[in-house]
Structure formats: structure tokens, C-alpha cells
């Protein structure tokens, strides 16, 4: 059994196991064990990958496996990883593991909840290991669809509306994407040769520029919708506000990353000429996302809305970096995905815990929580600091890499855009400190909140795991960034070849 | 002689067809339908498909029309005057039908039909029976059996559907 397929098989086995149990306790334990194995596997993959590289394997993807799946149109189950997917898989492993613990208290239809959650994770893992565009798309859909159930059934507030909106907008995005992918497929090989969905094969061939002009925007927007590209981001605030904790974590933490990852690996890599020609449009849009999301977050009063807008801003930065077409900014984009994934998951977990205790997410009704729940409050401050890019935490590494990388462009347009994006760090500070100051510090507003309790073990565990990841990445970024850097070479070389 | 008979039968078919769909008395419509069906059987006779004509007479004229008359009786509509149909509907339907007829008629007249062979198959009842129950080449045993199952199913289905609750 190859290690990559295990990433799909273990969740499926977990789901099968879940089908046969009834008690809540067993459901939790099985999910937690399954996802713990998955986490260990992700960590093992990182080490295996490093060992493989150290042993001199220089191929673009390692651990490749390919099975013919649908012969007449050459769809294959084709898996393989490089440094980028390895770290994304590690991120997913961490988030899903912590997500299980964050939903420890789900009591209503808990079995179905955990099954949907794990199915979602399966889709994400599958997406990151796929090298075949069609299989990739398939896993993408597997990841998106459970969201509808998860929000619609276990959500809060205006959940039916949110679930519908989120699903429809993401489906709309995938409609664009499907057209783009099929367009790539139809142009994937020179005249007279067999067409293919295999990314590596397509990359060897230059798709005709006319086709690129048409399919690049479709593909980019398709992934962009998931990456909360302005103006297709509005599913994010509503969706996150209604989603249950673990779903918000997974969605903002991992699912939104599919957008950035896909934009880099598919849109930019396979269609470099069009990317070069059209990037300015998307740079403007992502630049707007970055600033607009941050400014939008400043006046929100619902904690989840604040975080959702913050995600728009941060994910905008990912796409921004992807469009900046150089190695450093690509590296920054991946780092930002990791960083944002971890810290936003932490945020949503914390918001879920606060909401579970205080019964409200309205910052006007919260205050002085530091006194009653110091552990959660400290964690919240740390997550906030990571979000506003404090050195020593992950956000700084990612943002600085993006900024330095993006600024290496020699033309004024890219540099002005970078400066505009940089200015978001001030706005981020404003909204983060506003929330922290309002809900954690100051006197306790609501008398009832004096009775609230601090975190218990199954809440502390995910937070500590996330904290270790955030701080680890922030303190020692070198190994992870070098891991990514070497894998960026094929993509960068292809793009650079075009620009010259 | 045959030509004349053909035209007479054609006239009967057409006149009674029109009457079937236009008369206001439902029972009369059923009777006109009967005439049409019988006239169709006459066509079959003229084309020397005697067995088919016989089936047409027994099943269609004798079976289905009787069934229809029974249903009229069962739904207490024996004396019912059918409702007036509004003229817009009439005109639309008439136009659609006319258009269709002209279209098909045109196709029929512009197409040249050609016989492939002059050998005439044996249409005796013996031969028909043999072919129907033949499971060799050109045999119809499978459709025959399927039809029998279908009829059984229809029978059971009809009973269940029409049965009182």
C-alpha cells in the first residue's frame, strides 16, 4: 500500500467504523483515533519526503502511483507529492485532528456529524495528493458538498440560508473550474497525441495562447471563489457565521486553501502566458480583497464575522502572492496558507468555546473574559498576534516573505500594489486589538459571565497543538520554507521562461 | 373494382374518425370508433392479411371498444353531453394537425417508395403461428412471451388500480 493512498483510505475506514457504532463516546473515540492516525501519517509523510529528497530523488513529484480509472477519456487516479503538498497535508492533518476535538460536544446526530466531517477531510486530502486534474476536481467536490449538510443541519443562526448560499456560490465556482479544467484537457497535448489530465504531462506542453486566454480566467476564478477572491467572497462571512466550530475551522483552515493551492498548481503552472498577461486584473482584485476585507472587519460586531472578513483579507494575500510570480512570493503564498490555516482554526475554535460558554458572539455583550477564562483569553491574544503578524508566530514569516517577494518586481505597478497590501498590517492591528481589548480586557460587562469556566482538557488539547504549530513555524521557519522552496523550482522555471 | 372499394373504405374511415373526435355524445363517439376500427380491418382484408384483420376485429372492435363502453357506463356518463370546447383551442389544435398532415403528406409525395422484392410471404394462419412460436432465426417467441407477461401485468395492474380501497 503506498503511503499517499492511505490518506484517502484511513478516513474511509474511519467512516466505515463509525457506521457500526451507536454510543456517543465511541463515536468520538473512533473519530479521534482515526484522525490521530491520519495526523501521525502526515508527520511521517514529511519525514519520508525529506528522506526521499535527501536520498537524491530529484523528480518533481515523489511517491507517485497511477492507476487507469476511466480509460476512454484518460482519467487516472494519479497521486504524488512535492514539498508544497506535503506541508498542506500536514496542515490538513493538524486541523482535522483538532477539529474533531473542537466538536467533542456535538450531541445532536453526532455520528452523522463526524462522518460528514471526515468525508470532508477525505476530499481535502485527496485534493492535495492528486496529480490528475479530474481526480483533483472530484476530490474538490467531495470536500465541498458535506459543507452543505454540516452547516444546514448543525449550524446556528440563519443556517439554511447560509448553507445554501455557500454551496451555491462554491458550486458556481466549480462550474467555472470544470469548464477551465476540461478546456485544459482539450488542449493538453500537441495535435495528434493523446489528451491527458495529468498535470505533469500537461506542464511539458505549452497550451496554445488563445486557449490560455480563455481558460485561465475561468480556472483562476473557479479556484478564486474558494479562496474568497473579491467580489466572490460573500459566502465566507455568512457561511462561517452559521457553521459549527469544527466546520469553520476546517473550512477557513483548509478548504479555502484549496483555492490558493489550485490557483498556483493549476492556473499559474499550466497556463503561464495567460497568467502573465492577465495577472494585473487579478492583482487589482486581490489587492482590493486584502484591504477591503481588513477594513470590513473593523466595524463588525460578531466575532465570527470579524474572523471571516479577516480571512478574506488573509486569503486575498495568498492569491495576491500567487499572482506575483516569483519564487519568494510563491513561497510566501504557501507559508501564508499554512499560517492562516493554523491561526484561523485556532480563532474559530476559540470563538466556538467562547460562544459555547457565554452564549453570544456579539462583542458588545462580552467583556473582561481574561478574568474568568485566562487560558482561552491568552490563547485568543496569541492567535490575534499571529494574525497581525507578530514576529515569533507564523503570520510574520508568511507576510514578510510575501511582501519581500512581491516587492522584487521591477515595475511600478507591482510595487505599488505591494505597498497597498502591506498597509493592511495596520488595519489588521486595529481590528484585532479592538476585539481583544473589547472582549478580553476591561471590566466584566455581564454579571452572568462571572460564573464562566476556563477550558477543559479536550478544549486545551487542540489549542495547544495549534499553538505549537503556529509558534514552531514562527520561530523556526527555515526548514519548512526550504522544503517549499525547492519544490517551487519547476513552477517558477516555467513561469520565468515565459516572461523572458 | 378494388379501387372503388378502397375509396369507399377510406371515406368511411375518415368520416367516422372525424365524427369520433367531434361528436358531443360520448356513446356515439364510441360507436363511430367501432366503425372506424372495422373499416380498418377491411383494409387488412384487402391486403390479404386475414389473420391480422381477424385480430383487429376481435381485439379492437370486440374487446377495446366494449371496454370503453363499459367504462362509460361505469362512470355514469352515458347520456353526457360533452362540454363545448373553446374555439382558440380548436383552432390551435386544428392548425397543428393540419400543419402536421401537410408536412407528412408532402414528405410522402416527394419520397419514392420502392419495393425490394416481388416474392410474397405466406400469410396463412399456420405460418403465422409457426413464426410466432419459433425460437430460431426470424422467430417471435421472445416478444410473444413478453407480451403475455405484459398483458398479465396490465391485468393485475388494472385490477389493483380500479379496485375500491
Amino acid at each position, binding site marked *: 500500500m503506498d503511503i499517499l493512498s492511505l490518506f484517502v483510505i484511513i478516513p474511509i475506514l474511519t467512516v466505515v467504523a463509525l457506521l457500526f457504532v451507536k454510543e456517543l463516546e465511541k463515536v468520538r473515540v473512533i473519530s479521534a483515533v482515526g484522525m490521530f492516525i491520519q495526523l501521525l501519517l502526515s508527520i511521517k509523510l514529511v519525514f519520508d519526503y525529506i528522506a526521499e529528497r535527501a536520498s537524491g530523488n530529484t523528480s518533481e513529484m515523489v511517491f507517485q502511483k497511477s492507476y487507469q480509472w476511466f480509460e476512454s477519456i484518460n482519467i487516472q487516479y494519479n497521486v504524488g507529492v512535492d514539498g508544497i503538498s506535503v506541508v498542506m497535508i500536514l496542515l490538513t492533518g493538524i486541523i482535522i485532528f483538532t477539529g474533531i476535538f473542537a466538536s467533542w460536544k456535538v450531541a445532536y446526530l453526532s455520528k452523522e456529524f463526524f462522518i460528514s466531517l471526515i468525508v470532508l477531510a477525505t476530499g481535502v486530502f485527496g485534493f492535495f495528493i492528486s496529480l490528475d486534474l479530474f481526480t483533483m476536481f472530484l476530490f474538490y467536490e467531495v470536500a465541498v458538498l458535506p459543507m452543505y449538510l454540516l452547516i444546514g443541519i448543525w449550524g446556528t443562526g440563519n443556517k439554511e440560508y447560509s448553507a445554501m*448560499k455557500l454551496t*451555491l*456560490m462554491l458550486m458556481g465556482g466549480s462550474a467555472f473550474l470544470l469548464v477551465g479544467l476540461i478546456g485544459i484537457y482539450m488542449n493538453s497535448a500537441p495535435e495528434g497525441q493523446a489528451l491527458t489530465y495529468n498535470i505533469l504531462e500537461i506542464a511539458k506542453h505549452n497550451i496554445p495562447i488563445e486557449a490560455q486566454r480563455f481558460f485561465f480566467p475561468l480556472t483562476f476564478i473557479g479556484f478564486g471563489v474558494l479562496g474568497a477572491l473579491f*467580489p*466572490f*467572497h*460573500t*459566502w465566507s*462571512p*455568512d457561511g462561517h457565521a452559521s457553521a459549527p466550530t469544527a466546520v469553520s475551522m476546517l473550512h477557513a483552515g483548509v478548504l479555502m486553501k484549496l483555492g490558493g493551492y489550485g490557483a498556483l498548481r493549476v492556473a499559474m503552472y499550466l497556463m503561464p502566458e495567460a497568467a502573465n498577461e492577465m495577472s494585473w486584473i487579478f492583482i487589482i482584485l486581490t489587492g482590493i480583497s486584502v484591504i*477591503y476585507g481588513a*477594513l*470590513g472587519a*473593523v*466595524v463588525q460586531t460578531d466575532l465570527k464575522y470579524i474572523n471571516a472578513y479577516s480571512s478574506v483579507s488573509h486569503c486575498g494575500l495568498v492569491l495576491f502572492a500567487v499572482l506575483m510570480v516569483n519564487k*519568494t512570493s510563491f*513561497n510566501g503564498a504557501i507559508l501564508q496558507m499554512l499560517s492562516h490555516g493554523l491561526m484561523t482554526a485556532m480563532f474559530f475554535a476559540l470563538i466556538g468555546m467562547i460562544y459555547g460558554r457565554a452564549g453570544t458572539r456579539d462583542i458588545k455583550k462580552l467583556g*473582561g473574559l*481574561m478574568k474568568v477564562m485566562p487560558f482561552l483569553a491568552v490563547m485568543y491574544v496569541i492567535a490575534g*498576534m499571529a494574525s*497581525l503578524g*507578530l*514576529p*515569533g508566530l507564523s503570520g*510574520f*514569516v508568511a507576510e*514578510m*516573505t510575501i*511582501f*519581500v*517577494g512581491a*516587492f*522584487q518586481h521591477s515595475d511600478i505597478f507591482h*510595487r505599488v500594489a505591494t*505597498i497597498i497590501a*502591506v*498597509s493592511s*498590517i*495596520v488595519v489588521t*492591528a*486595529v481590528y484585532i*486589538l*479592538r476585539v481583544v*481589548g473589547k472582549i*478580553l*480586557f*476591561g*471590566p466584566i460587562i455581564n454579571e452572568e459571565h462571572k460564573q464562566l469556566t476556563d477550558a477543559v482538557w479536550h478544549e486545551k488539547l487542540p489549542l495547544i497543538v495549534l499553538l505549537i504549530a503556529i509558534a514552531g513555524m514562527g520561530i523556526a*521557519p*527555515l526548514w519548512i*520554507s*526550504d522544503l517549499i522552496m525547492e519544490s517551487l523550482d519547476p513552477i517558477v522555471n516555467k513561469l520565468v521562461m515565459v516572461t523572458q | 373494382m378494388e379501387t372503388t372499394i378502397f375509396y369507399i373504405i377510406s371515406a368511411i374511415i375518415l368520416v367516422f374518425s372525424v365524427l369520433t373526435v367531434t361528436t358531443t355524445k360520448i356513446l356515439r363517439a364510441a360507436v363511430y370508433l367501432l366503425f372506424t376500427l372495422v373499416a380498418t380491418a377491411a383494409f387488412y382484408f384487402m391486403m390479404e392479411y386475414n389473420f391480422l384483420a381477424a385480430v383487429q376485429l376481435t381485439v379492437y372492435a370486440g374487446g377495446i371498444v366494449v371496454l370503453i363502453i363499459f367504462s362509460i357506463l361505469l362512470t355514469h356518463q352515458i347520456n353526457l353531453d360533452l362540454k363545448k370546447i373553446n374555439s382558440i*383551442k380548436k383552432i*390551435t*389544435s386544428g392548425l*397543428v394537425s393540419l*400543419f*402536421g398532415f401537410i*408536412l407528412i403528406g408532402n*414528405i410522402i409525395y416527394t419520397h419514392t417508395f420502392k419495393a425490394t422484392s416481388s416474392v410474397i410471404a405466406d400469410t396463412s394462419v399456420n405460418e403465422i403461428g409457426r413464426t410466432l412460436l419459433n425460437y430460431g432465426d426470424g422467430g417471435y417467441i421472445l416478444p410473444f412471451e413478453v407480451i403475455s407477461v405484459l398483458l398479465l401485468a396490465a391485468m393485475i395492474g388494472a385490477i389493483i388500480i380500479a379496485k375500491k380501497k
Partner: protein
Amino acid sequence: MDFTYTIYIVLIPLFAFLVNGLLGHKIKDSISGVFATLALGVSAILSYFTAYNYFFKVGKVDGVYEKITAFNTTWINFTDKLHIDLGVLIDPISVMMLVVITTVSLLVHIYSLGYMKGDEGFTRFYAYLSLFTFSMLGLVVATNIFQMYMFWELVGLSSYLLIGYYYTKPSAVAASKKAFIVTRFADLGFLVGILFLSFTTGTFDFITLNENASILAQAAPLGFMGLSVLTWAVILIFIGGAGKSAMFPLHIWLPDAMEGPTPVSALIHAATMVVAGVYLVARLFPIFSAVDPIALEIVAIVGGVSSLFAAIIACTQIDIKRVLAFSTMSQIGYMMLALGVSGMGEEGTGFMASMFHLFTHAMFKALLFLGAGSIIHAVHSNNLTDMGNLRKYMPITHITFLIACLAIAGVPPFSGFFSKDEILVAAMNHNPIYFWIEWAVAGLTAFYMFRLYFGIFWANDKKHDHAHESPFSMTLPLVILAIAATFAGFVPFNELVTSDGGFLDIHIHWNIALPSIAIGLVGILVAYIFYKKESSLPSKMEKSVGSLYTYAYNKFYIDEVYMFVTKKIIFNKISTPIAWFDRNVIDASMDSIANITNYFSDKIKTIQSGQLQQYITAFIAAVLILVFIFNYLIS
């Protein structure tokens, strides 16, 4: 000489922070305080050892102090050339700063043992102090500008945490937020400046930058407004420095920062963090002087304006800590101005003077703050109006405070005199206008400091029931600092800390020193007349200057302007409309896609009427049309 051990100067406070931060709730208060203090003591001793080794054992090579990279490790790679390193750079200014920071920090640690005793968050306080010290030390030993930026941000964080230390107090929370955001805004300039710099020069490294300053400055492409990109880079970087050093108009956070505990004000907002901006300019001084002269001119102007501006406001404030805050701002203005008027090498009087003043200021300003803390500890109030006659209750505080006042007023032979004199000399050499501004500021400084002194210790015969001298742990630092404030002026800075590491020939210019001593004495005299005894003179004076007093009392309404910009413009005019726009335009247009679809399907569904005959008509008509099309039109 191996200086690798200097890394421990930085790491020991970090270790103390981690111990107190992670295990804080498990350790007893007293132990955690003593532990942090001891840790810092080790750090301080190592710093002195380093200073001794660097200045005297290694000494000058070819007449200059060398820059030594004691430790360096790659932290992250950006491109082949650009990478962030973490390391320790040893040169005269960083060694000087190490000494200043560890000394003041150690004394503040000791002081806080008494001052913070019994406070609920005692351990947390020490954890924050250690974190701050770690960040500040990391900042000064930075080998490259990005490392400096990182620690710069960390310093901002610890300042935020310490200002907001009393987190249940809304004013403290607001002040901490303000400090962070204002400095963050300035850091934006810093960061963009770094980006410019890295783009133009292709390196972050201080040594490379400084040694090739003139080559780089010449090679730098032209930016806009006729200045080279490198000039813009240093101007932007200076914005960052101005924000951290509370220079006009980014100073508004500093007075509010006094919401923090007083030892914090002494450490962060007087002696160390606020001079980071000065240090930054000094660190990049070769570049500053190599690019277009406008850059240094801006530094000088900002410094001059800030010093005058703050001095005027300081004369009117009632809260003693705010007076000290404005005084700090004014003194940092001096240092900035000194840097601004300086040149390299032989013309480096200003640079030397600035560093000198930084050093002496750290001593006497920390002393003033700690003294103020001691007073506040006794009377439980920050207001000058609640004080008076305290000399009888707090003799040690009284004497040390007086020494500090004399030092800041520039009375010889106290330390302030020497450093201020050098600044005035440098200003005079550059442009007499600067000299006269600073000369006036010197007078104002003497006046407001002695206003404070007389107001606190003399003024009236008020009885204070609870006031008493502070415990030993608090008076010991006072005494040590008083000694330092007295004798720091005799440190030969012209030999040790100069712009190029060489020797600078200086002597006291009596034609400049005498007028400045004179105006200082005049200031003291006026304060004596006004405030020695309660009198009506001050209020008459207030009336006679009229609106100027009101303006100064209200800090020239700068805060209100900021409030207007942030609340009225950013919140109400930008963010709220954006939030509205997002809900009602972007989101609504997405919703309207759904609604339009819905509307049309609602309309279309009536076709599905359930009327069989309509269906069949449509069906047959459609089949016929298709037949028609395929039979006649196509083929």
C-alpha cells in the same frame, strides 16, 4: 576575542520570560520576581564584561572600533541574496545600548520587587518585563535591519502588554491599543522602507549597508520627486523610528502610555524603547549621511519641532507622569536633532552627542520616573495638586529627584550638562536656528522640571498621613541611578562612541555652554519664584498667555485630530460604508443572481400547468417543427 557569549545576554531574559510565563501560576510570587531579577543580573554582568572587553581589551584597531559579528544564523531565506539572519552585532553603539538596557532594566526589576509587591499579576509583570528586555536587547544587537524590525515589533508587543497591564481598567486598555496601533502605523513606514532598501541594495545586512553606503547611494535609481529610491527608503525608515520614539506628530501614544505601572514607564517609555528610533537612525547613520541631505534635515526638523512642542506642553500638565512623558519626548527630540545636524567622521559631533545624551538621559530619566513612582506609591495619586511638602516624608526620593532635575536642566557638573552642550555645539555648527530653538527648550526644560520639583517637595505645608519613604528595594535603584546621573557626564564618549568608531576631538565651548547654563538657571529661578510657595503668579501667568496655555494644556488638540481621523473618517466614513457596501451591494448582487433565477423559474413554472393537453400540443408542435427543420432546412 570571542564574543559568542554575548548571545546569552539576549537569551537569558528570554529564558526568564518562558519560565515565568509558562510556569508562572505554579511559582510563588516572590520567587518568580527574584528569579527574573537574578537572571537579568547575570545578563547585566555579561554586558559589563562585554563592554570592558570590547572597549578596553580588544580596543581600537587602526584607530577605530571594529564591528564584530559575534553570532549569526540564517533564520529564513527569501531569495539567493535576501535572507533574514538572527545574530549579534557588537559595535560601540550596541555595546553602549546593552549596558544602558541591562542596567536600567536590572534596576527596574529590583525596584519593582517593592513597587509591585502584593499585586495580583506579579508573575505576569515579571514575565512581561523579561520579554521586553529580551526584545530590546535583540533589537540593539541586530545584525540586519530585518532582525531589528522583528524585535522592533516584539518590543511593541511588550510595550502593549505592559501599558495594558492593568487590563481591567478601560483607560489602560485604550492606551495600550493606541500605543500599539500608532507605532504599528509608523512601522508600516519602516517596513516599506525596508522593502525599498532591500530592493535597491539587495541586502539587509547592516555591515554591508553601512560600509558601502556611499556606493549604494550613488547607484540607487531615481525615485519620485527628484530623490533617489534610497533616500525615500531612509525617510520611510525614519518614520518607523519617529513612531517608536514618539516624535511629532506620532507622539500621541506616549502620554497615554503612562497608564502602565510606573517602573514600566521608567524602563520602556523613558530609557530604552523610546530611544529605539534614535538608535535606528544611528545604526543606519552612514546611509543617512550618504543619501540626499534632505533625509537628515527631516530628522533634524522633526527632532527640533518635537522638542519644542513637547517642552511647551510639559509646562502645563498636572499629571506628573505626563510631564515626564512630554519631557522624554522633548529630550528624544534633542537626540534626533543632534543626529540630524551631524555628519560622518570629523563632523560627527552631533552623532556622538546624540548617543551621549541617550546615555545620560537614560540614567536621569529613569531616575525621574522611578522617583515619581516612589512618590505615587506614597501619595496614591498622579496629580501634582495632591502633592507638596513631601521632602519631609521622603528624604531619599527628594535628594535623588533633585539630582535628576539638575541633570536634565543642564546644570554642571551633572551629566545632562555635558551631553546637552555637545548637542548645542553641533546644532550651532549646522544651523544657528536649531541652536536657538534648543537653547529655548533648555530653558523650558529647566522651568518645568523645577516646577515639578517645587510642586512635589515644597509648595505648601500639606500633611500626608500615609506618606513615608519607600522600602529599600525601591530606594536602592534611586541611589544607584542618582550616582550614575551625576557622573555619567564624565564618560569619554568622544573616544568610545563615535560615528565611525574613531576618536573625536571635543572640548567644552564656553561661548555656547555659558548661555545654556544661564537659561537653565533662569528657568530654575522662575520656577522657584512661581512654585516654591503657593502663589497666584502661575495663574496670572496662565491668564496672560491666554489661549496658548489652553492649547498647550490640551496638547494642541493633536489627540482630537487623531480621534477625528480614526473615528470619524476611518470608522465612519470608510469602514462602515465598506461593511454596508459588502452587505448591500456585493452580497446583494450575489443574492440577486439567486433571486433573479428564482424569479424566472417562478415565471416559467406556470408553463408546467398540469394541463395534459397543453403539454401534448407543445410536444407535437415541437416534434413537427423539428421534422420540418431537419427535413427542409438542414440537409
